[in-house]
């Protein structure tokens, strides 16, 4: 077994009581005190997540835009400096390589944020696809730390540490600035459905930034929040997680991410397959559900139709701390998605009530 990778905040987590687990090869805090309490803190006040394990890459050069339009499904020509785009990149068969954020910093200068567990795969894939384009793809993952400060109090807290006017940075926009004297890329984004920012800084500055945010935020109710709450928050918001709602076998049309697939921009990797998938309808699709019961419906559980036949399987499941009932998502055959669906948990049959997420009203700007 290879050693776990660590973020610049590894000592910080241990000092603050983080319960450390192996997450996709990274030694990360799943919680500090309680996943449920940390979740509620983000919905009602604020939480700070270490997301330094996320990967970053630079894409630069005269054909950077042309390359990105070929690589990803969304339309990067809509970006202007300071604007961020959510997208996926696909294989020729339509399956997803990863989902990512694309930042346009300036002419021919793009910055990408990719999933921690996919860094090696993504960089290799992108560099391979970039051959023939006049641009470079550079892995910058080790150079950056990243903090996500999320919740209704997040902006107020971070504003006490910066001269940048945060309300002037709209949702899915970013600006360079200083927070607590640390140079940051301030990104009005997140993975919780709440308002907030994600701060990218030099790896060596991450701990100083984290301590400053914690000190400024504690009086306003900010809690340290781990990956457990991050997962339940994203599922409550209905956001996909790579390896669950999107995989190399679940394309963005099946995943309900058709809105990030822009056929009118021209051809891109996977566009033929995805266009046909959209026209004829996917054979399987992701649905979100709740059960009205507290028993968690775990990933891998079989989904049954009224006749008891298996028509799919659960891909994410947790207890919604806000609804106090089990919520989740499942990949089911498209023709069964209108049926009454059930799961069997240790002999108890539970009906899945299909829900169009988010499961709770969200306050994101």
């Amino acid at each position, binding site marked *: 077994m290879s050693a776990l990778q660590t973020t610049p905040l590894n000592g910080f987590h241990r000092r603050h009581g983080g*319960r450390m687990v192996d997450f996709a090869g990274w030694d990360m805090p*799943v*919680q500090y005190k*309680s*996943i*449920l309490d940390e979740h509620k803190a983000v919905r009602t006040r604020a939480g700070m997540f270490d997301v330094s394990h996320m990967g970053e890459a630079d894409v630069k050069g005269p054909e950077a835009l042309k390359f990105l339009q070929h690589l990803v499904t969304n339309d990067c020509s809509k970006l202007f400096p300071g604007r961020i785009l959510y997208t996926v990149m696909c294989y020729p068969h339509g399956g997803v390589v990863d989902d990512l954020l694309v930042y346009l910093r300036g002419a021919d200068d793009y910055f990408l944020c990719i999933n921690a567990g996919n860094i090696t795969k993504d960089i290799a894939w992108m560099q391979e696809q970039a051959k023939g384009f006049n641009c470079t793809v550079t892995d910058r993952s080790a150079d950056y730390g990243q903090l996500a400060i999320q919740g209704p109090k997040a902006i107020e807290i971070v504003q006490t540490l910066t001269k940048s006017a945060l309300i002037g940075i709209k949702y899915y926009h970013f600006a360079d600035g200083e927070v607590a004297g640390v140079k940051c890329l301030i990104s009005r984004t997140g993975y919780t459905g709440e308002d907030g920012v994600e701060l990218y800084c030099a790896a060596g500055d991450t701990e100083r930034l984290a301590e400053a945010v914690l000190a400024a935020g504690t009086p306003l109710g900010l809690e340290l929040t781990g990956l*457990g709450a991050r997962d*339940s928050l994203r599922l409550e918001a209905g956001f996909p997680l790579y390896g669950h709602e999107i995989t190399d076998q679940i394309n963005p049309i099946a995943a309900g991410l058709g809105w990030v697939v822009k056929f009118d921009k021209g051809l891109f990797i996977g566009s033929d397959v995805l266009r046909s998938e959209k026209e004829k309808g996917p054979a399987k699709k992701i649905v979100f559900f709740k059960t009205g019961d*507290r*028993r*968690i419906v*775990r990933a891998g559980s079989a989904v049954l139709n009224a006749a008891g036949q298996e028509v799919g399987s659960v891909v994410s499941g*947790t*207890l919604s701390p806000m609804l106090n009932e089990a919520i989740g998502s499942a990949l089911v055959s498209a023709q069964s998605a209108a049926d009454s669906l059930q799961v069997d948990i*240790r002999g108890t049959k539970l009906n899945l009530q299909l829900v169009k997420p988010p499961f709770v009203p969200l306050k994101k700007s």
Partner: protein
Amino acid sequence: MSNVPADLKYAKSHEWLKAAADGTALIGISDYAQNSLGDITFIQLPKVGAVLQAGETFGVVESVKAASDVYAPVAGTVLEVNKVLEANPEKVNGAPYTDGWMLKLKLTNPADAAALLSAGDYGKLIE
């Protein structure tokens, strides 16, 4: 550090037992067990009247992380279950030895309790 009250007996599978003089006992899971499980979200308990063998599964404790079986430390008949845990399973996290009790058993053989681990031995097991 986990709390291991001295007046209780313990099973290797992390249940505690508090014996009464009338041959009954309360049963729950240890502080170490609740802490290892994390936030408890659901608890399934047996019906009153169920007869349990020593080591038999008597229910399921679910946390955000996983669902875990819980085991009868001794043989007995279920006299009562803690109904409060149906709606408030988190009481096992907050007070595993008091409000978080799970079962009241009528022991088949009250002497069985003596064979369980002492607080000292259980404390060593979870070090």
